[in-house]
């Protein structure tokens, strides 16, 4: 079965540094998402992306966050100046027709901000 791939699986960074989390969604999918899960807590929506633009973002997704689909295959999440509270597992997801059907999640990037 096709899958969403994320790299790296683990990222350790110093507070204030920029990080880029990378995702390759399933090739014919049109809707892309980032969610995050702080250790032991629930999964939280960050942003959805469709037709090369952000369609929705949460309160968490402030000016420090940005997303890009630079080349038609990758979908990236950038955090410009990381904070301690950004430490979490970040999941990318994609869907062919949006949330009317199931989302396919990647295996996640564990981000640790020191």
């Amino acid at each position: 079965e096709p899958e969403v791939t994320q790299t790296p699986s683990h990222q350790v960074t110093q507070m204030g540094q920029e990080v880029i989390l990378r995702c390759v969604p399933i090739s014919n999918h049109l809707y892309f998402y980032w969610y995050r899960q702080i250790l032991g807590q629930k999964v939280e929506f960050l942003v959805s992306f469709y037709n090369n633009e952000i369609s929705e973002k949460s309160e968490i997704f402030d000016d420090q966050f940005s997303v890009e689909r630079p080349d038609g295959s990758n979908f990236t999440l950038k955090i410009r100046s990381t904070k301690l509270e950004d430490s979490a597992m970040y999941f990318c997801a994609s869907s062919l027709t949006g949330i009317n059907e199931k989302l396919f999640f990647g295996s996640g990037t564990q981000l640790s901000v020191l």
Partner: protein
Amino acid sequence: ELKVEQNPLFLSMQEGKNYTIYCNYSTTSDRLYWYRQDPGKSLESLFVLLSNGAVKQEGRLMASLDTKARLSTLHITAAVHDLSATYFCAVDPRLSGSEKLVFGKGMKLTVNP
């Protein structure tokens, strides 16, 4: 704001037993999703419930949706160790143009031999 509550949050049960777990949500929606997460792994879609009265079954798991009660159940039949995982329900708030899912806190299930 939509709130999604799962009950219980932790469950330890013996193999062979049956149990039902619950997912309540606070505002009108007719779209609910169940996901499974193994430790350190991603979220695996189990069920997509898209209407009132929807019932879906896969193996030892059966999910249903009652939109009037704003309640979904996930029934486990004759549990086996392989079902040990965390189970999340997620609700589509059904806001116009929204692509967001709101997740519950998850229920950690341990099935003991």
